[in-house]
């Protein structure tokens, strides 16, 4: 357990340090949201209506962008081989790495949401709803994305291939994330049902993600 805690602490520290690049995701998130009014026009009513969708798309793309850092740096300096051979079960180590990655790259997106909500003319309730759904949904994005990151690192291919593989898998999270936030803002459906399914998706990804990533690392690294 201490080894796992050390792994998580190490990953967070590396991600937040100079050259870690976790916070670039937040900057990218901000840029995407700023770009949207240029595409759809500065109509505040329209932006309010599209707000939850824009924030969710931005967060999805931003979390995708930081994903290939999850294993790549460790693979380059050889510490991934140590993790694979280490005494901590690989599934647990993968879960720890993903948790650290989410704390360093996913949580900042949730924290930034209220500020970005102001830019999109979202009121307090809408912003809170989007932030809450992002808090429940971004872990699913990280843990499913981890599968793609593990595949990419064993094949020495990242970037576009990872995006093409991971994005279809994240469609359910996007659907229920936006559905829950829009239900909270406008109704008429209840907030509870889509939000519970969103939480369920995150829980499922906690189970599936580490096992699939560990399987592909174990079979792929040789």
């Amino acid at each position, binding site marked *: 357990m201490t080894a796992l805690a050390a792994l998580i602490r190490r990953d967070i520290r590396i991600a937040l340090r100079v050259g870690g690049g976790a916070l670039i995701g937040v900057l990218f998130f901000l840029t995407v949201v700023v770009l949207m009014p240029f595409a759809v026009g500065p109509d505040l009513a329209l932006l309010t209506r599209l707000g939850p969708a824009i924030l969710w798309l931005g967060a999805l793309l931003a979390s995708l962008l930081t994903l290939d850092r999850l294993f790549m740096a460790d693979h380059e300096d050889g510490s991934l081989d140590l993790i694979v051979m280490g005494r901590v079960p690989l599934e647990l180590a993968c879960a720890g790495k993903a948790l650290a990655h989410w704390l360093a790259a996913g949580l900042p997106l949730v924290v930034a949401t209220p500020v970005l909500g102001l830019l999109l003319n979202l009121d307090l309730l809408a912003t809170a709803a989007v932030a809450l759904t992002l808090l429940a949904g971004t872990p699913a994005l990280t843990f499913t994305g981890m*599968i793609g990151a*593990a*595949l990419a690192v*064993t*094949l020495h*291919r990242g970037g576009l*291939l990872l995006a*093409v*593989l991971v994005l*279809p*898998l994240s*469609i*359910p999270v996007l*659907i*229920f994330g936006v*559905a829950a936030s829009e239900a909270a803002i406008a109704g008429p*459906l209840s907030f509870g049902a*889509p939000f519970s*399914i969103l939480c369920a*998706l995150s829980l*499922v990804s906690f189970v*599936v993600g580490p096992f*699939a990533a560990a*399987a*592909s690392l174990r*079979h*792929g690294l040789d």
Partner: protein
Amino acid sequence: MKLSDLANPTRFLSLTGRLLPYLAAATAIVLLIGLYLSATAPDDYQQGATVKIMFIHVPNAWLSMFVWAVMSAAALGTLVWRHPLADVAAKAAAPIGASFTFLALVTGSLWGRPMWGTYWEWDARLTSVLILFLMYLGLMALWRAVEDPSRAARAAAVLTLVGALNLPIIKFSVDWWNTLHQPASVFRMGGSTLDRAFLIPLLVMAVGFTLLFVTLHLAAMRNEILRRRVRALQMMQARASASELGPASPASQPA
């Protein structure tokens, strides 16, 4: 590669070599009967002759999912038993499955034009088949990204199994999304069961398309095995010619 690994594909080649002509003949016969039955099936009282698109569309849609199931079984064979033919089967199935999915989309859209008045409708079924098509293409991109087939096989196997777990979730969420955004405005075949006059041609066509898949899949597997042998022979040849020149320049040896 050990000889015992080669033994199995060789037996497979000789067996399928004998089996394939019969399979191809059976496919042709069943498909001809199916086409005749579908051509002589009565027109629908609401849809007219366009209902005949169904006899092509539904088998394609059924196979688009069946092929993913076949690939998942092959993926288990790759990861669990390291069966030498499993990754060949998985690799050969992907483009065929993508073609069936594409045909299901095209025929669905051609059917949608007279029925719904538009080629594309963000209908729940169409959308989830489109996502399935995207996943097939992603899988094929993964196969093509890596030169070493056994390395690509294990990565593709993991992705296939994750996809098999995810596809029902995607289907369910697209249904949810569809009912949320678009109240039922779309004409559906569902509700009442199909009349026997439609059911029999449809079943014959489904059997015919399944036979077509089996035939194409076995042929594609044979091609893939032969392609790998050619690749192995080329590498052996390259190694032999390198070792003829070899001792003079040891630095050129790959690590």
